[in-house]
């Protein structure tokens, strides 16, 4: 898992985001904040004022930057006190963040929405191991489905993962997400009590993670 060292997005904007990397930022978040922190981060990377950015929605609602800034692809997720933003050029990243909290009905959710093998694997675990594995699977599914631009409406069971020592690894993807082998998936540990995942379809890239603990300006 990647550590999230503090960094200044404006300093990174100078060195840039190259075509062999994916950047993930942890940002502070509070309810009602909307996407202003994300816009400020994207603006820092692009070297333009946040007010100059416009967003468009893909056919299934995935937000993207409007031209002329659309070469910078991003994904955004928030939970609790944090947000994660994944940025890349040349691939569409998908990111998910979840605050880990007791989910007494996790197995019920898995049996309804996960692939049969995934639900069976979770049934074989208990306590914290089950919780950890459930969140690993959930964040993996969300990250891949967000990268695909489809979200959970695509069907979480259609992207199936193997659990390997508590980690999720792409196993069998159906429809336009196939093949599973075309995907990169990284588990993230953005902060104590939080888990995340970032995914993209394409070649392996260098994953760099940072934390901006004050709002980006």
């Amino acid at each position, binding site marked *: 898992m990647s550590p999230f060292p503090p960094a200044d997005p404006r300093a990174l904007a100078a060195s840039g985001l190259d075509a062999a990397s994916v950047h993930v930022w942890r940002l502070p978040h509070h309810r009602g904040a909307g996407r202003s922190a994300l816009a400020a981060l994207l603006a820092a990377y692009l070297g333009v004022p946040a007010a100059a950015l416009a967003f468009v929605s893909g056919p299934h609602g995935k937000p993207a930057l409007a031209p002329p800034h659309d070469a910078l692809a991003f994904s955004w997720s928030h939970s609790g006190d944090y947000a994660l933003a994944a940025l890349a050029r040349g691939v569409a990243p998908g990111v998910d963040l979840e605050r880990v909290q007791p989910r007494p009905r996790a197995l019920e959710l898995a049996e*309804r929405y996960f692939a049969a093998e995934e639900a069976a694997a979770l049934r074989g675990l208990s306590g914290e191991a089950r919780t950890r594995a459930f969140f690993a699977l959930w964040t993996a599914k969300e990250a891949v489905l967000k990268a695909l631009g489809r*979200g959970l409406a695509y069907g979480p069971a259609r992207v199936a993962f193997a659990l390997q020592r508590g980690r999720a690894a792409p196993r069998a993807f159906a429809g336009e997400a196939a093949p599973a082998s075309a995907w990169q998936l990284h588990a993230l540990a953005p902060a104590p009590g939080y888990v995340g995942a970032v995914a993209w379809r394409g070649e392996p890239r260098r994953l760099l993670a940072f934390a901006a603990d004050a709002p980006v300006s």
Partner: protein
Amino acid sequence: MNARDPVELARAALLGVAPDLAGERIEPDTPFRDQFDFDSMDFMHFVAGLAKTTGLDIPERDYPRLQSLRDCARYLEEHGWRAA
């Protein structure tokens, strides 16, 4: 609950997964995520509960159409749900 009112039916399904919302005003026309902390897991639980209560099969591709109580009521009516 008025079992003939699909908005109330959806509200009951919502309270089934988020009992801490009992007593709070839930705006029928405002998306859930704009009103309270309601993450994707809560949402998936909610729709599963709504499907169980109504006996309707709600495919996952239709989930984006269920963002508010009013959305849910409209969906139920369009798909042939009738009050008992």
